[in-house]
C-alpha cells in the first residue's frame, strides 16, 4: 500500500523517464513572446509561463513557446506573435496570463483568432 507521497514520488521519477516520448515536430506552431527589458517589466515572463503551462496541461503536440527581443513597440508589451504553419502571423498585444490562456484555447486549439487582443493600426 502506497501513501499519497509515494504516488507523487513515482510520478516525478517516471516523468523524467517518459519525457523522451513527447514528440518533436518539424511542422510546428510557434508562439513568440517579446522578452526584452520592456517586455519583462510589463509581465512577459508570466505570459510565457502561462502559455507553457496551458500547452503542457492540454498536452498539445507540435506547439512551442519561444522568446524574442524588443520589437520596437514597447508600450504594447507584453507582445505574443503566433505563427501557425500555412497561416499569416498574428500579433497579440498587452497580453496577460489570462489572455494567454484564452489565446491557446481559442486560437491554437479551435483555430479562432482572438480579434479583441490583436494589434490594430491605431
Amino acid at each position, binding site marked *: *500500500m*502506497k*501513501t*499519497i507521497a*509515494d*504516488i507523487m514520488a*513515482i*510520478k516525478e*521519477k*517516471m*516523468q*523524467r*523517464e*517518459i519525457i*523522451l*516520448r513527447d*514528440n*518533436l*515536430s*518539424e*511542422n510546428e506552431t510557434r508562439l513568440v513572446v517579446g522578452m526584452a527589458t520592456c517586455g519583462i517589466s510589463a509581465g512577459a515572463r508570466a505570459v510565457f509561463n502561462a502559455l507553457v503551462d496551458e500547452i503542457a*496541461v*492540454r*498536452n498539445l*503536440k*507540435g506547439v512551442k513557446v519561444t522568446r524574442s527581443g524588443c520589437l520596437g513597440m514597447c508600450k504594447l508589451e507584453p507582445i505574443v506573435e503566433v505563427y501557425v504553419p500555412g497561416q499569416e502571423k498574428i500579433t497579440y498585444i498587452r497580453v496577460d496570463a489570462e489572455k494567454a490562456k484564452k489565446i491557446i*484555447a*481559442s486560437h491554437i*486549439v*479551435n483555430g479562432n483568432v482572438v480579434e479583441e487582443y490583436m494589434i490594430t493600426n491605431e
Partner: protein
Amino acid sequence: MFRSHILVCGGTGCHSNDSAAIREKFEAALKARKLDKDVQVVTTGCFGLCAAGPVVVVYPEGAFYSGMTVDDVETVVDEHIVKGRLVERLLYKEKASHAAIKALSDTNFIKKQTRVVLRNCGVINPENIDEYIAYDGYQALIKVLTEMQPQEVVDIVKKSGLRGRGGGGFPTGLKWQFTKDAPGDVKYVCVNADEGDPGAFMDRSVLEGDPHALLEAMVIAGFAIGAHQGYIYVRAEYPIAVQRCKIAMEQAKEYGLLGKNILGTGFDFDIEIRLGAGAFVCGEETALMTSIEGNRGEPRNRPPFPAVKGLFGKPTLLNNVETYVNIPQIILKGPQWFTSMGTEKSKGTKVFALGGKINNTGLVEIPMGTTLREVIEDIGGGIPNGKKFKAAQTGGPSGGCIPASEYDIPIDYDNLISIGSMMGSGGMIVMDEDNCMVDIARFFLDFTVDESCGKCTPCRVGTKRLLEMLTRVIEGKAELEDLDKMEELCYYIKNNALCGLGQTAPNPVLSTMRYFRDEYEAHIKEKRCPAGVCKALLSYFITEACKGCTVCAKKCPVGAITGVVKGQHVIDQSKCIKCGVCMDNCKFAAIIKK
C-alpha cells in the same frame, strides 16, 4: 535512463497482425547488440491508425513506422538505433501525398485531433501503473479524496457540461446528482463496456490502452455518489481488454488505490469485472444490470431509472467507458477547460471509430463541432480510389446516415438528431458511390432482428416484418405502396418497443428512406440497383472485348460460363449465382454487370 524508447502497438488490431512477435524480436535484437540497457521496448495501447498496423514508434525522434513485419525489426535496430538513420522505406506514408512522414505527430491523422480520452493510448504501457501515474494518473483521485466534498465533485461534473458518450447524450452531472440524492445506504457504480455496435471499438481501445483512467474515474464516481462497489460490464469478445483491466486492478490494489482505506483516507471502493456474452441488448442499461445480476439479459420498463432502482434494486450510476474517462481530467484541469472545447450544447471531444470506405481506418478523437468533411477528408485521409462520398452512418444500428448534402454539418448531439441520425457510441461508417443505401439499411436491420431479445412484440415481430419488406425491395418484388407501409411500421415500432434497442431499430431504414428515396424507388420501379450491389437485380454479361482466354470459365464455381478458346464466352443466366468471380479475374475488362 534509456536513451531511446521503442513503442509497439498492442491494441487488438496490431496484436492480430503479430505485434507481440515484433516486440519479442525487438527485445532479442537489442539484447544481441547489448543495447537492452539503453533502449526500452514498450507495448502500448492503440495508436488509432489501425489501417497502418502493425505500428511502431521510436522516440526521441518520434519516427512512425507502419506495416511492420518481424523481418523488418533487424533493419530498424541496425539502421535507426545503431546508426541513427531513419528507415525511409518503413515510414508511414500519407495516402494523399505518398510522401514519407517522419513523425507520428506530423501525420494529418494525429495533427487534426484533440486527444482527451485517448491521450494515453499509444503513449503509455497500459500494464505499468507507474507510467499512468507519470502522466498525471491518480492525481484527480488524490485531489478528490483529500480536498473535496462529494457534492463538489458532482458540481464540477455538472459545470463541465459533459454528456453521456454511450448514445443518448444525457447530462452526466445530472445523472450523478440523481444517484447521489437517491435514498439508500448501498449504491453501485457501473461501467457499460458492452460495446456492441458493428464497427465501433473506442471503448475497447481505452480499456486496452489506458485501463487505469477508467479505474480512477470509477473510484471518483464512488466517492461522489457514496458507493463502495463498482462493476465493469465488458464483453468476453475483448480478451485483451479484459486482461489489461485485470492487471490494472491488481496493480491499483497493490498501490492502495483500490480496496479498503484508499491511500489512507478511509474511503473504501472495490471493483469487479463481469463478462457479457456478446448480446447487443445487454448494452441497454436495464438489460445490462439484469445480466450483471446473473439473469437472462432482458430490458425492463423505465421508470424506475437505475439512479433510483438499479443493480440489485439499489441506486446505480451507469455510464459508458468514454464518459468516465473524461472525469479525472475534468477534475484536474477544471470544468472551464472542458467547456472551452466543443459547441454550445455539446462540450468536449468525441471519439469515433472510422470505418468503411476510408483511407485511415482507425480511431479519431475530435472536438465536438468538427465538420464531417474535416473528419473524413483531413483526418480520415479521404475515400480510396478517388470515389465520391455518398453518406456516413453514425450511431450504428440505432443511428442513421448523414448524406453528402450535410457534409459540412458540425458534428454534435443536437445537429445529428436534427438530421435524423444520432451520435451513438461513435461508430462512423463511410460509404461511397458503390454502396447501395437500401442494402446498408438491410444490413443494420438484419443485425437488430438477430439481436432482438424477444421480450416485447413490437421489436420481436415488428423488426422481422420490416426486414421482410426491405428484402422484397432488394429483390425487386416490392410495390411503391410498400414504402408507405414500411414507414408506418417504423414509427409503430419506435413508439411501442420496450427498450432503446427496439425504439431505435428502424432508424437506419427511416434515415435512408428520407435521404435516398430515389434509390428505393429505382429498386421498385425500374427493378434496378443504382450502385450495382443488390444481386437479385443484377446480371453479369460478357462483352465483345472477350479474347476467349477461358480464365472465367475455369474460375466460375458453378460452371455457368461456356465458350471455345479464342472465342467470346457466354454466361448462362439460369446457372449464374452472381458471385462476381469472373469479373474480378477477367484481364480484359470484358465482363460487365447491369
